[in-house]
């Protein structure tokens, strides 16, 4: 058995004060100054921590908002002078897709590398847009399950990237013709290019080190050169038509490269393969209204090994008036490729709108082989996703002052937590391999189908 994939982690506390969901407003003028003040009784000792925080402040940067929202002090205060409210700073985090809850849980995972655990059941909406309109299955009694998360059974999260011929071909002398190269990754995740809007001076180095530390691959600008050449194995250069060329000697040390889609894509692949025959070439296809058709067309071309489809940051189809969501687009591509009998020959990477670890699992269930992310890693660095990264605008998270060890630690922790959560989901499903998760929609439940099968039969047509 191969060595188990394990990411070494350690807690990386935040540099900035936490932006919690709740805060307590204290109307001090009515205080009775009881000697048994409820503030002393806070189970989480937050009032003392707040006082310490304020005492140490050298400049007023941010208020202290780390109340756990248990209402105990509010309800027990002799003079009823405490009031708990939702922190407006918390509500400002993220946007309509990257909701404050997502930002908060990402921060927590980046700090602790642990799976977020809470009690009292699920608190959210019944279902929702995009990935929130599907549930993963579980095994029970009649099917074997896997007890993976605590290491009692081994669940592999490895995937292979490249072209996988459906049959062997023989040379004239009856020897097996050369097999296409494959890149194995320990996790179905690739770190995608940083958005130009979010490019920070030290970010490339951080991403390089995170990819190397976790054994993953990061797609990076063709002009980037790692300090340590050994890390080239963990870098896939993105070759756009106008990007800087990568010297052949450097390219030969990489395993994967990504090129922009173009009419001459087949020729471009041949050129690259000529330089480095063992490299796997991915084609980046933007999921515009023509994106799905183009991805399917590319999959039919013999030279194409990997297609990387990209929705926008919120998982939506680009340039469409009524955009489809990433999960539906992946399903369409996957299903069409199955119908054409070529699905297993192509590796499908999907990105855009992958915000949580369950999105990784769900995108794979819908038909992607692996996913690509970038924004969650940025959020791990305490980014608020305020989207005001223009030069000269102060960053509320002060990302420009980021320390490399801190950033690598936080990104690594987040990836480790995502890995554990993928294992958690697969364990519940009784799956032993991420490869087998791909396209297994029978192990998922979709909102529309469940509604139709149950309420549709009982209550007529959905309005």
């Amino acid at each position, binding site marked *: 058995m191969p060595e188990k994939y394990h990411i070494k982690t350690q807690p990386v506390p935040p540099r900035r004060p936490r932006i919690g969901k709740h805060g307590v407003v204290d109307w001090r003028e009515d205080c009775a100054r009881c000697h048994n003040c409820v503030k002393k009784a806070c*189970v*989480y000792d937050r009032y003392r921590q707040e006082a310490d925080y304020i005492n140490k402040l050298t400049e007023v940067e941010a208020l202290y908002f780390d109340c*756990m*929202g*248990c209402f*105990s002090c*509010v*309800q*027990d*205060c002799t003079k*009823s002078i405490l009031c*708990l*409210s939702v922190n407006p700073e918390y509500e400002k985090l993220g946007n309509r897709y990257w909701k404050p809850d997502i930002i908060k*849980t990402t921060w927590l995972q980046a700090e602790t590398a642990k*799976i*977020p*655990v*809470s*009690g*009292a*059941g*699920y*608190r*959210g*909406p*019944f*279902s929702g847009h995009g990935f929130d309109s599907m*549930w*993963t*299955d*579980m*095994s*029970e*009694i*009649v099917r074997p*399950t896997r*007890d993976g*998360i*605590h290491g*009692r059974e081994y669940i592999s999260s490895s995937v292979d990237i490249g072209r996988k011929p459906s049959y062997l071909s023989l040379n004239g002398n009856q020897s097996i013709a050369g097999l296409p190269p494959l890149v194995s990754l320990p996790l179905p995740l690739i770190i995608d290019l940083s958005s130009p809007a979010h490019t920070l001076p030290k970010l490339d180095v951080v991403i390089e080190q995170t990819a190397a530390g976790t054994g993953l691959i990061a797609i990076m600008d063709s002009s980037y050169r790692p300090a340590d050449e050994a890390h080239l194995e963990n870098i896939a250069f993105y070759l756009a038509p106008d990007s800087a060329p990568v010297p052949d000697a450097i390219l030969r040390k990489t395993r994967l490269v990504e090129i922009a889609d173009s009419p001459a894509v087949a020729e471009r692949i041949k050129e690259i393969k000529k330089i480095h025959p063992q490299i796997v070439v991915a084609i980046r296809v933007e999921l515009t209204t023509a994106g799905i058709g183009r991805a399917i067309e590319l999959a039919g071309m013999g030279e194409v090994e990997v297609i990387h489809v990209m929705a926008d940051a919120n998982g939506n189809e680009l340039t469409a008036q009524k955009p489809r969501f990433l999960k539906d687009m992946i399903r369409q591509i996957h299903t069409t490729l199955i119908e054409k009998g070529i699905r297993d020959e192509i590796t499908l990477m999907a990105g855009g709108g992958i915000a*949580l*670890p369950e999105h990784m699992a769900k995108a794979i269930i819908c038909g992607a082989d692996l996913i690509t992310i970038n924004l969650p890693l940025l959020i791990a660095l305490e980014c608020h996703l305020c989207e005001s990264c223009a030069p000269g605008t102060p960053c509320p998270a002060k990302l420009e002052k980021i320390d490399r060890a801190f950033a690598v630690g936080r990104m690594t922790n987040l990836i480790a937590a995502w890995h554990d*959560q993928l294992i*958690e*989901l697969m*364990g*519940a*499903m*009784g799956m032993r391999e991420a490869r087998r998760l791909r396209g297994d929609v029978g*192990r998922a439940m979709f909102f529309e189908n*469940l509604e139709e*099968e*149950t*309420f549709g039969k*009982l*209550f*007529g*047509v*959905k*309005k």
Partner: protein
Amino acid sequence: MNTLPQNTLKTRVPQEVVKRTVKTAPSRYRNEIAKYIVHRSLDCERCGKCVEVCEFGVHDRKPGFKYFAEPHHHLCIGPSCEKTGHYCVAQCPKGALQIKENPMYRALGDFRWTADLILATWKMAETGKVPAAAYDYNYECGNSGGGFDKLRFKFPKTPPVKLTEDEIDTSISLNKRKDGRPEIKIDVPWYGGGMSFGSVSNVTQLSKARAAVAFNTFTCTGEGGYMERMRPYDDHVITQVATGLFGVREETIQRVPIVEFKYAQGAKPGLGGHLLGDKNTPAVARMRETVLGISLFSPFPFHSVYSIEDHMKHIDWIKHINRRALVSTKVSTPTDVDMVAVGSYSAGTHIVHIDGGYGGTGAAPDIAKKNIAMPIEYAIGKVHQFLAAEGVRDKVTLIASGGIRSAHDVAKAIALGADGVVIGTVELVALGCVRCSLCASGRGCPRGIATTDLDLAGKMDLDWGTQRLINLYTAWRKTLVGILQRLGLRSVAELRGRTDLLMHLDYTNDVPAKP
């Protein structure tokens, strides 16, 4: 029953009686969380007009006192009071009063458990009555945008049959197999879910047990073992056998009328139980026979069960050890939950208990709570119909859980096809839970409910806890009787599977009614 050996129950203690009497059980906290706040400005001349006009007792001036006490904000019905002619704000001669929505109200609750639902549950637990209509609490559903929250009853303008409350039967039978084992009936179509000692305090567990006695229903030990202090309530306790097998002994199986196999739970379908190290106190470690302070992760699944035949072996084992027990099989809701249910029936279970993916009280990974297994609203109908198609629907009791928050949810679940339900979170809310979700961390629940920390658990008194649950059950039963009365149904059993009495807000509802 007479033909079965009686000697399986070796040690029996006298059983305690708990009366089903409603008594006011006010909040444990000094300041109740209110929907509205009343602000009195310095313009007040203390004329006392507000005390005189308010019908709800919001304003209070103790006899002999010059100044008013802090208004009882939680009793205020808000600006809608204006219509009543008793609106203090309008009647104050100095215009010194203001009523505003309490900003804390927004901080309370979530999509599934709205602030209204929490506040209404507290009122029910306090008084034993549903809150007055004037409070305008929407406690019939939450705000999740699907499932129970979109289902409504199609109440006729006048009931087809006029029934008095006394004529309506809310009891259900738990043994439909007619296999010679006891015909256990419970007075209300619900019983308390498994919450282990360790996950909750012993006061919480005992309060649940005593309320179960009062209503001739059940509570469940959860997987953390059987407290000796539960012995006086043995006849209303379900012993849970879960994958960790903590505290499961021959004797604890023999004590009870029902034994439950927990294969999975809605809080974390497909995963084993979690008790984080901080909550593994000396008492918990002793009960579970484990090492103090370590996190306890129960395996998933039972490694001795990989087929229905294996499951049958488990059931036979229990039936052999306790010849008077009914067996319940608790499963979660995978795609093939219907097959699992039929398989469980064929293995010999009396009760199929399906626990939907959105429920649960215990610590669970957030990813599991939200994403694994289907919500219970889908599973009930699926299982009910499949059991009927297999011709065994009337030979097994179907119990649903996982998101039952109100008596209306109980009725909806039964109308979808369940015989009854299991409740959990609502009991904790009745005991003062604000759903801060911090049950798992550190010393546990800051409200003293889901904790084994002695200081925190000491915040709650057993008599108070028992009374809150008795009050809640009373209000629920009354609501359920009211629903049945409006539908003209004589018993809750008649409601089972009556989907024709339901409508869904997102559908045309043009399916013809059943004859």
